[in-house]
């Protein structure tokens, strides 16, 4: 089974000297659905930022698709980033329609309009947002915003999805639906690493759960 993410001896200290991650070891295989659970300020977002090449690594090894992030040139880091779908916490969409949000990303990645619209429709269909194509994205409720964020993450078909607390601000029923959506995407071949500060939705009990407490990883099987 091929390894998508391999973290070894990963540590990270914030600007104000707080140890956010401390000797983290983690391995995510292709096809895994992993939930990284931990309280606020446990280091979950930093870990997602490091994996998504949005934060400069400090110490330890981060291998994504077998490539060491710390040693990548700027160009290669951008290439790698394009193979990762990343949904940050508190994602703010563009003040455009749902459809335009996704096509904007695809056009900026170099697709022509027709190609971008085709991919956008496919992604929005996968998350069940085709009925709201013409809605202004900033006026969507939190549940639909998360679904739009996921559509944006998957529209250029990356193999790895990194989702930073997609359940925050959602009712337990909506959390269940998001979990179902993630499980569905996972079955379609996406490797998913999602963080959450709360407990995993009931339906998610079959997923692999990794606890992050005080910057250290404790794996539950």
């Amino acid at each position: 089974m091929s390894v998508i993410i391999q973290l070894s001896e990963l540590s990270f200290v914030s600007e104000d000297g707080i140890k956010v991650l401390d000797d983290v070891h983690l391995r995510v295989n292709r096809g895994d659905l992993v939930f990284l659970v931990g309280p606020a300020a446990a280091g979950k977002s930093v870990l997602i930022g490091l994996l998504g090449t949005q934060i400069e690594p400090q110490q330890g090894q981060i291998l994504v698709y077998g490539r060491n992030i710390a040693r990548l040139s700027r160009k290669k880091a951008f290439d790698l980033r394009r193979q990762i779908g990343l949904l940050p916490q508190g994602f703010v969409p563009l003040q455009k329609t749902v459809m335009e949000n996704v096509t904007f990303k695809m056009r900026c990645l170099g697709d022509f309009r027709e190609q971008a619209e085709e991919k956008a429709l496919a992604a929005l269909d996968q998350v069940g947002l085709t009925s709201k194509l013409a809605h202004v994205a900033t006026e969507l409720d939190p549940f639909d915003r998360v679904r739009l964020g996921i559509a944006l993450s998957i529209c250029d078909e990356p193999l790895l999805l990194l989702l930073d607390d997609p359940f925050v601000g959602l009712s337990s029923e909506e959390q269940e639906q998001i979990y179902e959506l993630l499980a569905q995407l996972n079955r379609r071949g996406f490797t998913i690493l999602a963080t959450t500060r709360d407990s995993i939705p009931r339906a998610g009990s079959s997923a692999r759960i990794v606890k992050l407490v005080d910057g250290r990883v404790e794996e539950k099987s």
Partner: protein
Amino acid sequence: MSRFLFLFGNLLGAINRRIGSLFLGVVGLIVAALLIFAGFFLVGETTGQENGPALAPGEMVVYLSPQLSSDGVQSLYLKIRDMPETKTINYRFAQELGLDQAGGVFIIQALNASAAASLQETIREMPGITSIDSVTEARGANVSLSSALRLGLLVGLIVSIAGSLILARYAFSLLLDRFSAEIRLLRLAGTPERVFQPPVVALGVLCGIIAAMLLVVVVYLAHFLALSHPQATIHAACGLLLPGRVLMVGLVGSLIGIILGGLIGVLGASLTSRDRFQIYS
């Protein structure tokens, strides 16, 4: 439509009325800087002979005898116009140029300096010509400015350039705030800075191009106005009477305007690396 044009269109779409007026202010300040630059070359009196008109290199004033009939003037005009060395020829009354004599004059522009010499020789032999005034290159090119005026222009130039940079930084800061969701989305998508910075630079260049075009329009309007009122212009802005000088100022000024616009754009693009446009900072 290319990715650059798509992003540029989106960036322009983020401009609201307030930001638009700020950018108009930037264009206005660049135009002011360019006009002040032009002033160094176009304003002031020529160092040519005291009672003669301002002349460009290759240009000459041919004084006609007051005894010449209008048919004689017409015939001379046509003869000189048809000479291969002649580029342009205009008839003026001597009084129009503030000359203290009766009759008319031809203001002739030769093709080049060497053509001017032979043209002058040929014309001198023609009947009805009393004298010819021409200038050497150095004399025609000098425009004298008082040191106070020179200092004033220099201060104005510095103030307008600094003002345009400060105003542009503020305008870009507001514009990029309105475009910040797009920038963050681009970063999320793994788009490098070299994709979303060029449209910002292009916006600065566009300001420079608009300013350069305005400069050319203003300078040429002033040039044509000066040609129709040469007497009023000679002592205030004799450079405006010299077509070559006006062309040079227009070209160099345009180039400076575009470069200044590019610098303003680079200044704007540098703001995209601020923390507030990062997803994780």
